[in-house]
């Protein structure tokens, strides 16, 4: 088969890692946005701590699911996507709300 399924003993941790990726991604986005909009740079380290959790979860999932070749590329793309998407949307927000001063 073209993919190597996770081992039974890794199954639970693999799905938890999956959930954690999305959750940590959202916490990162949330803290990032709050930190920017309320002008609280002190929150930013926590945002990146959430992102670090996401990185850990991606690495764990990639190993448990025996990622190699193209699948490794998917993992890297996920890391970049979750990292950059909040920045991108922030820029778009600033660009499209010209007259508002939050």
């Amino acid at each position, binding site marked *: 088969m073209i993919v190597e399924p996770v081992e039974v003993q890794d199954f639970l941790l693999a799905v938890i890692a999956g959930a954690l990726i999305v959750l940590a991604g959202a916490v990162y986005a949330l803290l990032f946005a709050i930190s920017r909009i309320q002008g609280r740079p002190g929150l930013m380290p926590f945002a990146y701590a959430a992102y670090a959790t996401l990185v850990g979860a991606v690495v764990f999932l990639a190993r448990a*699911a025996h990622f190699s070749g193209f699948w490794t590329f998917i993992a890297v793309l996920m890391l970049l996507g979750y990292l950059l998407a909040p920045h991108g949307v922030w820029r778009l927000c600033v660009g499209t709300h010209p007259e508002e001063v939050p």
Partner: protein
Amino acid sequence: MAAAAIGVLDTSHLNGGQKLAVKYYTVAIVLFVAQVLFGILAGLQFLYPDFLYGVLDFNVNRMVHINAMVVWMLMGFIGSVYWLLEDEAGTPVVGLKLGEIIFYVLTGAVAVVVLVYLFVQVGPGNDMTRWFINEGREYIEAPRWADIGIVVAVLTFFFNVVATVMKGRATGITGVLIADLLALFGLYLAGMFYTTNVSIDQYWWWWVIHLWVEATWEVLVGVIMAWALMTVLGTRRVVVQTWLYIEVALMFGSGILGLGHHYFWIGTPDYWFWIGGFFSALEPIPLVAMVVHAVYDSGAHKMRNSNHPTLGWVIAHAFGNFFGAGVWGFMHTLPQVNLYTHGTQWTTSHGHLAFFGAYATINIAMFYVAAQKLRGNVWMGAGIAGAWRWKWALFLLNAGMLTMTVALLASGYEQSFIERAIEGATWSGYFAGQSHPWFVQGMQWRMWGGWVMLLGLALLLWDLFTIGAGETRKAYSPSEDEAARTAA
């Protein structure tokens, strides 16, 4: 006719499109109730397999449960489009009379289809069955004659929308709406394609199901949300429209080929492992990115709004969509994991949370918009009489759904382990998985969640019919308030 007083339930408060919308909403609500009742019957049959056996079999209850869901949600969406159409286009709906006739035709057809489901349960599977009884294909099992009727009805609806926009004003919102409706209805044709090869059949069937819920419905809801945010929260048009364009790009970008996550095990070529893995790994990112936008905008106008229940359900939608589609979806989407979870109660857990969280919520939010206007744009902010009702309905429906979701997850986890991993997906493993105590307990807990939802639903109905009664204050208007503050 003179407009009725504020607080009095009267359709004279509405424009033509909105009157038709209320009819659609009414049928949607009836079908929502049917959905929940048949879900309860099906759920009970997991625990008591003899219950109604030979009278209303599990396959029938399940079918009515999920077909009613698809139809009530679509009717809710159609209603919502009629609701906002005149406001958006700035002109009365063109061909409304025709739309009205089609509404009755559609409702009659749905009633006939359901009666046939309920009374003709056993028989041969031949062309006659396909044309008049049941077409197969989960969620869209309506027989061929009804398919054709649906296509005609939908074309009429589409005509109403396009003709109205062409006569009136075209906006970014209506532009996205028309393109999306075209895709949404076009996809339905893929589900009518007839073949005797089950792999090909499933291949096209997923075009409808997946490309509906993970692409076209998601965008349609974006359109409705954009409009709702403008009217309820007073968000500026340029803001919601830009947000809508981004959402369309991101959702379609990852959602369309995310389709591949249904092509792992049905006999389609191997490259779908990569396509499905690649795109569906990226699918939650738009949902995550939207968090930034939500924070940005709530910071900008501090949540002053004209309709508290609607805002409550819009927030439930944001969370429900994120958890149901994003978290629950991604958890089982990689083939390395899906091998174990495919078709277990794990899938059902995701299906329930995602459909409820993303689509039931937004329809209910619009029902409250209608309830407000039906009483002459009555006050629905702080201090309305009987506010406990909408709050408890919101709480019970969501808490019941969460209970169900978690219970189903437990059962699904057990199935993945016992049936798939240990017993190797064998026939005996299938049954071993379903008699394990963890599975049975999950099914019991699911019922508790179901009863709580039923209670919440009863409260919701009561509230929709009574909210705002006897209230004499006019609704808070975010745009007038904004104007006043800017002038000051």
